[in-house]
């Protein structure tokens, strides 16, 4: 019973982690940017969905749509207003751009977080779920929403996989992550690829944010921990490796769930952090890293 319980709960939370981390790692793989406003964008998407669905009465679907759109718009705003300007400027030395992008996206994340707290208070909010009720799986009373979360996460990841492997634009994107110069030689405009990848990222972050809002709820405080958890999953899996991130998401998700069930919810985050430190020492490029 407990075994099935852990298996089912762990799966839902891990799928959510996987979706959140996929976009993050995609951005890093293709554009070399660690976007530290990641958590804030997810929270903004969830809070937008909450406000539209509840306060303005557009229902669960309307809320979810606006939430995803919010993630999309904010992601492109992050790229055009901040990242692109820093990448193209000549007044910063190349090797220092990394710290500038990190600092700038962090500041941007803080601005989003503060704006959310100002407009909607920092109390936690839960997005009106699209599906309600509970289902019994192998004797475990599982909220239907949990199954819904896992299904949508995998559908989104599946779409991404299809896009990258089956379409021309997707293949260019994949190629760009391996060798940016080579892609430009093939006639692709690198900046178009960047825009595409930020757009894909925005949609993924938006979906992940809205699902998180339905499943567990978010507050403006969640922004920091969400960024940190995406960051650690991505590093654990190997920076830039999507499949590595997926595996790492499940490792972290199950490790947390096991700890919460078998030891104590208070220690939930600790074993995953320890694992991360160990991996850092033994295999610094992560589980499936190629850089």
């Amino acid at each position, binding site marked *: 019973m407990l075994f099935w*319980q852990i298996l089912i*709960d762990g799966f839902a*939370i891990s799928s959510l982690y996987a979706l959140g981390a996929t976009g993050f790692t995609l951005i890093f793989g293709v554009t070399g940017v660690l976007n530290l406003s990641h958590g804030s964008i997810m929270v903004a998407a969830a809070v937008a969905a909450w406000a539209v669905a*509840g*306060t303005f009465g557009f229902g669960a679907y309307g809320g979810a749509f606006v939430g995803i759109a919010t993630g999309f718009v904010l992601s492109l705003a992050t790229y055009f207003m901040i990242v692109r300007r820093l990448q193209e400027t000549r007044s910063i030395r190349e090797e220092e751009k990394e710290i500038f992008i990190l600092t700038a996206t962090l500041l941007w994340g803080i601005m989003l977080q503060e704006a959310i*707290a*100002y407009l909607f*208070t*920092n*109390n*936690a*909010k*839960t997005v*009106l*779920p699209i599906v*309600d*009720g*509970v289902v019994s799986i192998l004797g475990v*009373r599982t*909220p239907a*929403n949990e199954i819904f979360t896992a299904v949508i996460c995998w559908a989104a990841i599946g779409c991404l996989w299809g896009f990258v492997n089956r379409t021309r634009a997707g293949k260019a994107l994949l190629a760009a992550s391996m060798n940016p110069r080579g892609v430009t030689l093939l006639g692709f405009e690198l900046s178009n690829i960047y825009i595409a990848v930020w757009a894909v990222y925005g949609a993924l972050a938006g979906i992940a944010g809205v699902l998180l809002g339905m499943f*567990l*709820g978010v*507050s*403006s405080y*969640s922004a920091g*921990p969400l960024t940190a958890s995406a960051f650690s999953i991505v590093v654990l899996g190997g920076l830039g490796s999507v499949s590595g991130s997926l595996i790492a998401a499940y490792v972290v998700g199950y490790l947390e*769930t096991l700890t*919460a*069930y078998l030891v104590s*919810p*208070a220690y*939930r985050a600790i074993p995953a952090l320890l694992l991360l430190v160990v991996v850092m020492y033994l295999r610094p490029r992560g589980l499936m890293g190629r850089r």
Partner: protein
Amino acid sequence: MYRPAKTLFCAVNLSALVLAASMPARADGDVIKIGVIAEAQSVSGSSIPAAAQLAADEINAKGGVDGRKIEIVTYDDHSSSADAVRAFQRAANEDHVSAVIASYISEVVLALEPWSGRLKTPMITPGAASDVITANIAKDYEHNKYTFHGYLTSGSLAKLTCDAAKTLLVDGLKMKTAVIMSEDAAWTTPLDAGYADCLPTIGIKVLDHIRFSPDTTDFTPIFNRIEGQKPDVIITGISHVGVQPTVQWKSQQVPIPMLGIASQATNSTFWKETNGATDGVLYQAVSGPDVAVTEKTLPFVDAFQKKYGNFPSYAGYTAYDEVFYIAEAIHRAGSTDGEKLVTALEATDYVGTIGRVQFLPPGDAHVHGLKTGAGLISGLFLQWQDGKQINVWPTALSKGSLKFPSFVKTSASQ
């Protein structure tokens, strides 16, 4: 390479900025200033300055205190004790407030307590609950006597919860077992001890005791462990969290009712924040939207709603009362001197929105805590029912009977 003149210029600019920031309107010495330090971004905290302002407006409309107007100076502490300490220093040293109303977070109030003594500025908390606040005053009265506890201590909260549980659960629903579930924070340590003490005396056996980190977002494992114990009821102690456990309680259809302290549930917006998941949740409060605890309660709620468009949080009621009895104390003391004000506040006997306010005298283990009991402050128990907060205890003020959502099994219905 450098341009010294420019450097100096900027430095002057910076200091000008500092000076501009430090120049308050100090023109009228006739005004009585009361500082309000609160968590502007949280629902519980945001009512504090709003309610205090409302009280000040009402006092000023009637001519103020001996002809002096009251001015509320507000500070946002971002739920951080360091920010609160800075705000307190600013209030006392810079804005020269006569008294401070501060915070609903025990940790913040505990950090301010020594400063209230050091700067000899009386401070009253409208919402913190830790017993340690009053215990500190008892331990070192001379230094800490400037702090007053304007809300119930955790010990009293636990006792009131047990009183209500006796009527509602033991007598009403024949319940026998419970699990205590509370967040890990300063205020819940004495609360949990109080629960563990008094629940057995009313005939409820405590099966388990779960403390979780206020950072917790996924409550599935916690509810699971509780369900495994098969208790009749979950006795709660939550304030920093609220939405997430409540929503997950409903989405997982945990068949056990929740009763206890759930500060966020006292807010009128809680139904909306939880998408109605709070239906059936029982929580302790000092006042409720439709309950005339005293003749002042409902007029206050109406005025608050008219001015701000929502209902006050629990700390709003106490903050509102505090402005009135600080004003009374200043009138009686005939001075805003810290020491004299403390003596005057100790003599407070004021009927406010939550009951009759009197402080425990020096010598008591909880000196400067509120006296509780019938005729003083007895508290209420409310239940969320179909989007409304319905008072169910004490019976004399009750507006309805218990009603639970269908997934909750109570002993009576089994």
